[in-house]
């Protein structure tokens, strides 16, 4: 796969270009489902009465919720922009999140994604790999910055990892 230098060059040419913004309306049920999926009983995420008396004044989302906002749309954009250029298996390499404001039910969040970096690396166990870093910016309905996120996706050669 990664022998295909032309594709890597094409991917590099997309660095720094903003993708089409994705707009998401945050519903209370999304936050509750998220809290239940991670099995986190913190009442700030689900108990409206408790949350109202907290310093936030309402339910807020667990901090890692933000990285899932617009994920399905991200996947669609990703399938168009990135997936055709790379083959092999894909893994999540890591994430860096910076928080500025909590997410609340009723928020309208706009996500803008761009490719920030493309690197090739020779892995110890997994052979030649491609690391693509995505940078996402999240703003709310009043254009306040909510969070920034850098995610690294790794492509690996199938069959190389169990040598």
């Amino acid at each position, binding site marked *: 796969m990664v022998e295909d230098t032309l594709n890597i060059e094409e991917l590099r040419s997309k660095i720094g270009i903003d993708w089409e913004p994705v707009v998401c309306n945050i519903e209370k049920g999304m936050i509750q489902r998220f809290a239940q*999926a*991670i099995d*986190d009983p913190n009442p700030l995420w689900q108990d409206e009465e408790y949350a109202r008396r907290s*310093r936030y004044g309402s339910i807020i989302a667990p901090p890692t919720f933000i990285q899932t906002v617009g994920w399905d749309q991200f*996947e669609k954009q990703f399938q168009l922009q990135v997936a055709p250029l790379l083959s092999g298996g894909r893994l999540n390499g*890591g*994430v860096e999140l*910076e928080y500025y404001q909590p997410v609340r039910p009723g928020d309208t969040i706009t996500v803008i994604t761009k490719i920030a970096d493309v690197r090739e690396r020779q892995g110890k166990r997994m052979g030649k790999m491609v690391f693509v870093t995505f940078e996402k910016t999240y703003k709310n309905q009043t254009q306040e910055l909510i969070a920034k996120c850098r995610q690294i996706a790794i492509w*690996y050669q199938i069959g190389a990892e169990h040598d």
Partner: protein
Amino acid sequence: MTEQLYYEDIVAGSEIPPVVKQATTRQLVMWAGASGDYHEIHYDKDFAQSRGLPGVIIHGQLAGSFLGQLITDWMGEQGSLRKLTCSYRGMNFPGEVITCKGKVSKKYVEDGEHCVECSLWVENPQGEKTVLGMAIVTLPTRG
């Protein structure tokens, strides 16, 4: 909820009370639905194996969210999470008992805010660190 943690309560090296998790395949499906991440390596064993993986693996973001809980449980309602990073170094599998741990690396005052930097990690049953993370939080003071 546990008692509020204050900046004065901790020193470099202070340990964060661990959070233990055992994700089932059911939980992975709940995560897929809640997050919108339908990558088949997290629920389709045949697909995962066709991708060279030993089986279905836990979403990195789910393991990262466990670290998120570790830190929000510890810092309490008056604490604020400013930064969280996770680097996925190994795979976690459904059914495994995994333990989220952390400790304080340093504390400092910046722009009038009382900041604490912590190192975080997820340990698998073999004691291997499969996720390495870092968090910066701000805490209230007793002053």
